[in-house]
């Protein structure tokens, strides 16, 4: 009896989570970066709460994007360096399942961490509590989409020296729509208008990405492993 797809998903997911939590410092660093970047904006611009609140959704989202770029490196690089990525790809389960499991684990670890820290950051940026549910939901959808876009970018640049700058160069333009919708939703929640339109668009983008990106990321890995 062959090991099935779902069982594989569970096994690789567990592997990724175990590995992730054995290096807690690597989990925390992107979060600290997130906090630092958000601090840069008030320092560089203005501390007047009214102005801060207007900028807040954008600042929050840009900081989340940049922090995610940092954590992307961990997606495939470690496995590629020690040869275990090849073993995973040759395991007879197909690259698709492997990629889905790794990306999902990456989101659970880094995306979820960002979402958990975001209320802290949001309060520092004078975002009212009433906007939190929309903010959290949009960050949830956004970080998932970003994990997938990042999987494509990371898959294409695995094994390249200085690949991390190139990954950002590739992924950030593709991530601009989700920045627009995510920050737009949060902004509308703050100003009191309905964020539903933006949320629906964000959800549609997330759905589209989750459907198509695994194929692109799997193809990318196949090419780079040659």
């Amino acid at each position, binding site marked *: 009896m062959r090991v099935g797809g779902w069982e594989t998903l569970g*096994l690789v997911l567990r592997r990724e989570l175990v*590995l992730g939590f054995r290096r807690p410092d690597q989990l925390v660093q992107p979060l600290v970066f997130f906090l630092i970047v958000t601090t840069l904006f008030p320092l560089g611009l203005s501390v007047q709460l009214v102005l801060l609140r207007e900028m807040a959704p954008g600042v929050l989202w840009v900081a989340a994007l940049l922090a995610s770029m940092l954590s992307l490196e961990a997606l495939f690089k*470690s496995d590629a360096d020690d*040869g*275990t990525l090849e073993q*995973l790809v*040759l395991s*007879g389960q197909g690259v698709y399942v492997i990629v889905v499991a790794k990306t999902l684990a990456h989101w659970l670890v880094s995306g979820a961490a960002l979402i958990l820290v975001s209320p802290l950051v949001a309060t520092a940026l004078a975002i009212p509590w009433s906007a939190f549910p929309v903010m959290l939901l949009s960050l949830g959808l956004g970080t998932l989409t970003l994990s997938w876009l990042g999987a494509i970018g990371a898959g294409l640049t695995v094994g390249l020296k200085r690949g991390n700058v190139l990954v950002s160069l590739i992924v950030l333009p593709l991530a601009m729509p989700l920045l627009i919708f995510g920050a737009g939703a949060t902004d509308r929640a703050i100003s009191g208008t309905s964020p539903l339109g933006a949320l629906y668009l964000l959800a549609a983008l997330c759905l589209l990405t989750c459907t198509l990106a695994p194929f692109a990321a799997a193809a990318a890995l196949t090419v780079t492993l040659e």
Partner: protein
Amino acid sequence: MGTTRGAAAAAAAVNGARAGLSVEKIHVWRGDRHVLKGVSLELGAGELLHVSGANGTGKSTLLRVVTGLLPPEQGRIAWRGTPISAVPLDYQHELAYASHEPALKGDLTALENLRFMVGLKRRMSAQQLRATLDRTGVAQCADLPARVLSAGQRRRVAMARVLAVGATLWLLDEPYTNLDTAGSELLSALLLAHIRAGGMALVVAHHDLDVATATRRLGLD
């Protein structure tokens, strides 16, 4: 009735004798370098092929092409008569590939490494995995993180992985690296046992192989 069954069995026996790995005239370029120039080989049950050659002659590349990771520019590779591009996952289930590096996660214990790797191909209990580690002489390392193991111990854990998977085709790239005398003898004994049981192996090694069986040799230089 008896004759048709007998004929079918005879046909199967003939096919079985030809069953195995068949590599025909593969060409691979790495950038501008023509690394593999029309290499061909055949491997049947109970056969061990030693791929030798100096550095840079494409031994590791050949192995990667046989795994299917690197599609050749020209030529074809067939497993049991079918091209491997047609049945990649089935083919992968029947092979075990050990690359130049032992391919272990430093943060996982030896046992966990086996569990997460072997578990994708075969369900094995922790006891069975420990028993396999014992066969390759690293039972005491089962609960140690791989980064504290010596190079030789890591190589033995990699050996255990190949054993545990129970594959027909072994593709080993410089498997004797970092092994002491006892380890080398152990590896040779395991290879011999695998061959005698009807398995096949393609071993890349720049030195002579000391496996007491009729080993064919393919020199790439």
